[in-house]
């Protein structure tokens, strides 16, 4: 197992920005674009063109609120992803969604007839210009996203604090929106007349709209040329929706609250929710995988701790059976001999049985020994530091639960040692578990110190030091003997099995007092 490699590949596998879209995703994206084109065709050229719709003023604030919430949530999720990946591209696209959300505030305030007949702020032209700026601005963020990703998606540029990066981006985006809002409201008189009154658009509208739509086309092309991920795919769909919105706002009916206008709002809402839906789906998948991984890790840990009580109980049972048989046969033998006329034949039979059971018990003991005997097949070169890292990872939950500080001092240049990887890890897990138990009832600070050092040239010495109650001088001699335990629920097999494993590796397992308190367990491994 190569845990480090696994983590990296899974991280790549789970994050939307890196995951390549599957055929199903591509088909779905294509279907969305196709559906949008059909609606577009039906309205501009087809039978829906003549459909009359009523102005519903209440629709506008409801629409703006929904858009604001969706865009904000998308931005938050993308910022969260940035804090994991530290990729500048994610930061840029998250800012794009902040921009998209914030610009809705001046837009709704200027909309004629919502808060005031001519809008609460700005003039007649403000609403449309804010719309243009939003539709030109967001594609620019998309282009920025695509280009900064091209610069090397995995280069983690930002070295400072994540919070500062997010705060700075939000601040810059807010400043940008404020500037745009100021231009569109206070500077409304300077802007070209794109609307005639609170409802009708002017013939000038398409001249301003065309370059805005062109921005989306540019963003679409940039994404198309270098698209790789699921996020890219759905941003492309969003850019398609953006591109269609502009002509649909003007053709076939250049006024607000037309069927085209309502469709544009629907397109806008769709483009706002698409990435959000995909992100939520990703989170759901991620959550399921995370849960699965955690359960798998717990199972793995339990399986590795088999050296402890589970094995001990099995051994106890295996030895207990012949013992039971021996004691029963011995009692039977005495009874046959004690009769007024001793039944020697049956007594002999009973004693024969005892001898056989004795051999059987011997076989059980021999097979237990064989479990810990390592042969050439299972002895591989060991990366001791890697084993320590893995063991700490497996015990992480317990270490955190008992607020134990972990200090690891590993020597980078260790001689190569050989051994049974699983068994050595079992020893380490047992020692760490013991250390945790020893410290759990003690006052803080609780420090677990793991150390690896070179030993006598060709060996490695690993030490596990705790700041627990320590081991009394009286117990020091007995601690490795089977059945010795200080735990109320333990069987006292852990350390004796650990010693059996280390001795099978021609090493030594020893214990010494730690200063100022606690114990240090050390074991050696050789080439």
């Amino acid at each position, binding site marked *: 197992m190569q845990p480090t490699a696994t983590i990296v590949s899974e991280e790549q596998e789970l994050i939307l920005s890196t995951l390549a879209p599957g055929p199903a995703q591509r088909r779905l994206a294509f279907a969305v674009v196709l559906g949008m084109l059909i609606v577009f065709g039906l309205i501009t050229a087809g039978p829906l063109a003549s459909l009359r719709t009523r102005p519903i003023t209440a629709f506008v604030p409801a629409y703006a609120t929904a858009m604001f919430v969706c865009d904000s949530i998308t931005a938050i999720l993308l910022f969260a992803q940035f804090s994991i990946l530290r990729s500048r591209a994610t930061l840029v696209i998250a800012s794009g969604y902040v921009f998209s959300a914030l610009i809705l505030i001046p837009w709704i305030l200027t909309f004629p007839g919502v808060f005031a007949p001519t809008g609460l702020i700005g003039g007649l032209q403000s609403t449309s210009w804010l719309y243009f700026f939003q539709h030109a601005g967001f594609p620019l963020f998309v282009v920025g996203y695509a280009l900064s990703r091209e610069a090397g998606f995995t280069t983690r540029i930002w070295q400072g604090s994540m919070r500062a990066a997010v705060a700075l981006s939000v601040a810059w985006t807010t400043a940008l929106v404020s500037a745009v809002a100021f231009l569109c409201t206070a500077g409304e008189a300077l802007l070209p007349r794109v609307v005639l009154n609170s409802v009708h658009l002017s013939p000038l509208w398409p001249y301003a709209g065309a370059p805005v739509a062109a921005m989306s086309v540019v963003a679409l092309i940039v994404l198309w040329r270098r698209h790789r991920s699921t996020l890219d795919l759905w941003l492309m769909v969003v850019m398609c929706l953006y591109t269609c919105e502009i002509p649909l706002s003007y053709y076939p009916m250049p006024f607000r609250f037309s069927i085209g206008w309502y469709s544009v709002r629907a397109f806008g809402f769709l483009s706002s929710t698409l990435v959000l839906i995909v992100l939520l789906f990703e989170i759901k998948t991620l959550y399921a995988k995370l849960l699965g991984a955690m359960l798998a890790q717990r199972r793995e840990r339990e399986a590795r701790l088999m050296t402890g009580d589970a094995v001990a*109980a099995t051994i*106890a*049972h295996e030895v*207990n*059976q*012949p*013992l*039971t*048989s*021996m*004691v*029963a*046969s*011995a*009692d*039977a*033998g005495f*009874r*046959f001999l004690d009769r007024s006329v001793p039944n020697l034949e*049956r007594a002999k*039979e*009973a004693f024969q*049985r005892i001898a*056989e*059971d004795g051999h*059987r018990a011997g076989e059980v003991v021999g097979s237990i020994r064989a479990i810990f005997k390592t042969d050439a097949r299972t002895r591989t070169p060991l990366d001791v530091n890697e084993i320590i890292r893995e063991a700490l990872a497996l015990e992480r939950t317990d270490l955190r639960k008992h607020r134990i500080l972990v200090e690891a001092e590993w020597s980078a240049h260790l001689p190569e040692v050989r051994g049974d990887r699983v068994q050595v890890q079992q020893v380490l897990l047992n020692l760490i578990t013991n250390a945790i138990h020893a410290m759990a009832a003690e006052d803080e600070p609780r420090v677990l110190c793991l150390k690896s050092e070179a030993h006598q040239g060709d060996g490695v010495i690993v030490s596990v030091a705790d700041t627990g109650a320590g081991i009394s001088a009286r117990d020091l001699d007995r601690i490795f003997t089977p059945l010795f335990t200080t735990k109320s629920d333990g069987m006292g097999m852990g350390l004796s099995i650990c010693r059996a494993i280390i001795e099978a590796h021609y090493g030594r397992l020893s214990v010494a007092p730690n200063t100022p308190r606690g114990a240090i367990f050390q074991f050696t491994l050789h080439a």
Partner: protein
Amino acid sequence: MTDHPRRSLIAVVDDDRRVLESLEILLESADCDVRLFSSPTALLESGCLREIDGLISDVGMPVMDGFDLVRVVHEARPGLPVFLVTGRPDLLNRPRRDGPGHYRLFKKPFNGQDLLTAVADALRGPGPPRS
């Protein structure tokens, strides 16, 4: 027990052949007749449940364990003396759906004389001991 008019018939159930045979010889040393079964099912299917005077069974067995067996046996033969032997007394504390039933428990390895005394006492019945 030698003064008993009829030799008692004891059924022994254990999935370990050697334990089974050692119990056989122990019970025979006390002049009991013994029937051996390697599983609770084997005993229930043998049809000799009606004839036995007592039952000694292991607890930990696959499919049906000693407690299950006690329950089934007592449905057919209420009051039949039952002795359970277990090598894993640590597992006895787990919660069980059914009640404890009437049995005496011996921990493996058990003292053979104690088991025989308990069996003899039970076979004599709840009334005053026969002279």
